[in-house]
């Protein structure tokens, strides 16, 4: 039951990240999706190494989101791909 709920949360958050207009909103949904993916990993692999893998992915996705959030306000006029 938990895996279905988490899967629905992940797909919903990914779609909302794609659709959202504001960039700060996009970061919020990205974080929620990362937490749900690490929970789904630790429910799918029910061994200690699965727990270590989920912890690693949790830390890595938080670091990546933090790096993106730090550079959001720094880029002013962006170069668009035509």
């Amino acid at each position, binding site marked *: 039951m938990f895996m279905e709920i988490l899967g629905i949360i992940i797909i919903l958050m990914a779609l909302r990240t794609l659709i959202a207009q504001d960039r700060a909103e996009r970061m919020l949904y990205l974080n929620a999706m990362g937490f749900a993916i690490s929970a789904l990993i630790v429910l799918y692999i029910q061994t200690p190494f699965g727990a270590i893998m989920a912890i690693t992915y949790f830390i890595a996705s938080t670091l990546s989101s933090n790096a*993106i959030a730090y550079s959001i306000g720094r880029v002013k006029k962006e170069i668009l791909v035509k």
Partner: protein
Amino acid sequence: MLEWINLTTVSAAVLLIGMVGIITLPKPVDKVIMLAILQGGFIGTIVAAKYLDVAMAAAIFDPIATIIFLIGITKIQDIRNQKHEEEEGNLA
């Protein structure tokens, strides 16, 4: 009814959503955000095939790739602004 929702299908859906986002969104930082989503789907796909060591290596190296992309975006922005100011100075 909901048995088809497991790690494999969810990761594949997340990969496809990230791919569509990278292709359609025009701004570079949005592209990097969608790349972070695609990395999540990629790691989920590797874990669904139970290659946990490969998944751990991918999870460790993904933030490094994101940080290198962000450094490139901000640096090319600075260089282009600097060149623009120099050209304006020459004209004046």
